[in-house]
C-alpha cells in the first residue's frame, strides 16, 4: 500500500521556493479560500478575547490550523459529512452554521446544539478519536444505500494512540468505506510531544496496517491540503475506499485557554512557527499573484470581524435556558420519572 512520505507543498516562500498551482482552482476559488481562512482565523482570535472577557468558557484554540480545515472542506461537496474534533469546533461555519451557534456551544448553552443533518456536520467530538468509527459508519452506511457521499474525520496526532482511531480505520479499510482520515499532526497533545506519542517514523505509516494509502502534506499550505483531500475524495467516490492524510503543522498556540505551554514548549520554536503561519503564507501567495490588494484584505477581515461582533451579540442575547432542558432530548420517549424530577426541581427553585 502506497505511503507518500514527502510533504506535499504548493505555496512557495517568496524566495528560493517557487509557488505552484492547483489545477482547476481559478482566482475566484483562491479568494474564496482566503475568505474562509480569514473567517476561521477571526473566529479563533475573537474567541480568545471573548474567553478573557469571561464571555465564553474554556476554549480550544485552533490558531494555525485553519488551512487544514478550509483546504479539506473545500474539496468536499455539501452532501459529504464532516466529523470534527474540538480542534475543529467552528468548522460548521464553512457550511453556513451561524457563528453564534458555535459560540453558544463554548458558552455551555443549549443554543449550541445543532442537528448534524442540517449541515452534514457531526457534533463536536470531545473525547479523543471516538468519532473516527462514526465517520467510518456514516461513510459505509451511505455506500450501502448507493449514495455517493463520503465523510472526513478530523483528529490530531494524539488520537492515533487511541483504540477508537485504530478500530475506525480498520473498519473503514475492511468495508472500503468512502472516508478521508484527516490527521492534523500539530506535534503536541497538550504537553506530550509526538515522539512520546509514537515510535513510528511518520503517522502516515499507520495507514499501511489497515491497507489504506496515505499522503503527507504541509498543514499550513491550504492549497496542498485541498489538493490532497480532493484526490482522497475522488478515490472514495470511485469505490476505492479510505485515504489517510497526515497534515503536518505545529501548534503555535496553547492547547486551550486553560493551558500554559511556556512550561513545556520552546518559545523560540513557537515564534518561528508563528512567522510561517498558514493565513499569512496564503496572503503572500495571493499577493505574489496580484490577487490581494490591501483594500480587499481589509474588506475581507472587516466582514469577518463584523460577523463575529454580531455572533457574540446573538449568543449573549440567548435567554438563560429553562431547567426543563436538563431533561429534554435525552430520550425520544422520556421515562415518567422525569416529570416528577422536573416538578420537584421547579418547586425547589421557586422556594430558593
Amino acid at each position, binding site marked *: 500500500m502506497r505511503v507518500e512520505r514527502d510533504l506535499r507543498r504548493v505555496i512557495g516562500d517568496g524566495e528560493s521556493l517557487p509557488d505552484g498551482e492547483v489545477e482547476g482552482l481559478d482566482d475566484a476559488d483562491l479568494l474564496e479560500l482566503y475568505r474562509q481562512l480569514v473567517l476561521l482565523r477571526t473566529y479563533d482570535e475573537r474567541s480568545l478575547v471573548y474567553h478573557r472577557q469571561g464571555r465564553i468558557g474554556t476554549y480550544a484554540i485552533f490558531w494555525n490550523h485553519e488551512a487544514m480545515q478550509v483546504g479539506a472542506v473545500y474539496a468536499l461537496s455539501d452532501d459529504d*459529512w464532516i466529523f470534527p474534533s474540538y480542534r475543529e469546533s467552528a468548522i460548521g461555519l464553512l457550511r453556513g452554521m451561524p457563528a453564534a451557534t458555535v459560540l453558544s456551544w463554548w458558552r455551555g448553552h*443549549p443554543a449550541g*446544539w*445543532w*442537528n*448534524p*443533518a*442540517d449541515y452534514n456536520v*457531526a*457534533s463536536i467530538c470531545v*473525547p479523543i478519536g*471516538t*468519532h*473516527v*468509527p*462514526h*465517520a*467510518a*459508519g*456514516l*461513510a*459505509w*452506511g*451511505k455506500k*450501502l*444505500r448507493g*449514495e455517493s457521499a463520503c*465523510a472526513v474525520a478530523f483528529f490530531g496526532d494524539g488520537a492515533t494512540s487511541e*483504540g*477508537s482511531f485504530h*478500530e*475506525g480505520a*480498520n*473498519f473503514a479499510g*475492511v468495508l472500503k468505506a468512502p472516508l478521508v482520515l484527516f490527521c492534523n499532526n500539530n506535534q503536541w497533545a497538550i504537553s506530550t510531544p509526538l515522539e512520546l506519542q509514537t515510535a513510528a517514523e511518520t503517522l502516515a505509516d499507520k495507514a499501511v496496517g489497515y491497507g489504506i494509502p496515505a499522503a503527507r502534506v504541509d498543514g499550513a499550505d491550504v492549497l496542498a491540503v485541498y489538493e490532497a483531500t480532493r484526490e482522497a475524495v475522488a478515490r472514495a467516490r470511485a469505490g476505492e475506499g479510505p485515504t489517510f492524510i497526515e497534515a503536518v503543522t505545529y501548534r503555535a498556540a496553547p492547547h486551550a485557554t486553560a493551558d500554559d505551554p511556556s512550561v513545556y514548549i520552546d518559545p523560540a520554536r513557537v515564534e518561528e512557527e508563528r512567522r510561517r503561519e498558514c493565513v499569512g503564507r496564503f496572503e503572500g501567495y495571493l499577493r505574489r499573484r496580484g490577487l490581494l490588494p490591501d483594500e480587499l484584505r481589509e474588506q475581507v477581515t472587516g466582514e469577518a470581524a463584523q460577523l463575529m461582533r454580531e455572533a457574540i451579540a446573538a449568543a449573549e442575547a440567548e435567554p438563560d435556558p429553562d431547567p426543563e432542558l436538563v431533561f*429534554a*432530548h*435525552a*430520550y*425520544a*420517549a422520556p*421515562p*415518567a*420519572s422525569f416529570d416528577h424530577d422536573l416538578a420537584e426541581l421547579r418547586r425547589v427553585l421557586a422556594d430558593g
Partner: protein
Amino acid sequence: MGELTLVEAINDALHHELARDPNVLVMGEDVGLVGGVFRATAGLRETFGEDRCIDTPLAEAGILGTAVGLCMAGWRPVCEMQYDAFSYPCLDQLINHVGRYRWRSGGKMEFPITVRMPYGGGVRAPELHDDSPEAYYVHTPGVKVAIPSTPADAKGLLAAAIRDPDPVVIFEPKLHYRTMRGSVPDGEYVVPLGRARVAREGSDVTVVAYGAMVPLAEQAASALAGEASVEVLDLRTLKPLDEDALLASVAKTGRVVVVQEAPRTCGYAAEVAAILAEKAILDLHGPVLRVTGYDVPYPYWKLEDAYMPSVARVADAVRRLLAF
C-alpha cells in the same frame, strides 16, 4: 403459537424485524457466515443478504461506533456483542456517544441502536463468559435496558427494542438459550418496554427478579409452597422500570426479596431497594433483602454454583424476611 427455545425466539424476532423494515441491519462478530456463535442470527444472511447481516472485524467499540454513524445514514443497526464480558470495550461508545448523541443534537437526530448480548453464568464456561453487567448499562443516561426471561419475551422485547427510537440494550440469558422452550406467538410480536410481568401470584412475599433469575425465583416459590405464598415479579425492563407494578406488588405483600446474579454493590437490586425505601416505606413489613452474586470476580466454574444465587439462598432470604 409455536414452541421455541429462547434463542430460536430471538432468531424469529430478527427475521420478522428485518423483513418489516428495510433499514434494520444486523452486525457483529461471526453473525453472518456462521449465524452467530449461538446461532441467534442464523439464516439472516441467506434471507436478507450480506449487506444486512454483516460480519465485522473483532472490535466491540468499533461495532458500536460504526453503528452510530450508520444511524446518521438512516440505518437501524442491531449490534451483537458476542459475550457479556467482551462487551466492555463498547462502553466507551455507549457512554460517550450512544447515550448522549440524541441529546447533543437537541433531540433532532435519532439513534435507534439495539445492542443485544448473551449474559450470565451457570454455563460452565471459561473466564469472562459469565458476567452480568447490566448495572453498567442501566447507569448510562440515554440508554434503555431490557432482560427477557422467557422465549416469548425474548422475541417481543427484542422487537420492541428494534422499533424503539432510543438506544436499547438487551441482555439475553444464555443459560436458557437452549434449555428453555416455551410458547411464542407467530409473526410479528412486540412486548412493550417498561412493563413488568407477574410471573407467579402470591400474597406473603414478592421476589423481584429478571432474566435467568426469574425461573430460579419461581423454583424457590415452589419450594416454599405450603410455607409461604410467594409472588414473583419479572421486571423485564430495567430502564425504564415499571414502578407501578413494583409498588402494586409490594402494597399487596409488604415483603420484598430482590435477586440478581451480578455482584451486590451498586447492583440493580440496590436501586429496587432504594425505590421501595423512597416510595413504599409504609407498605413494608421488613427490610428489603438482596440475594446476589458476591463482590468478587466471577469464579472459575468449579466454584460458580457457590457464587450464583440458588433456590436455597432465595428460600432462606424469604424465610428470614417472614421471621423478621
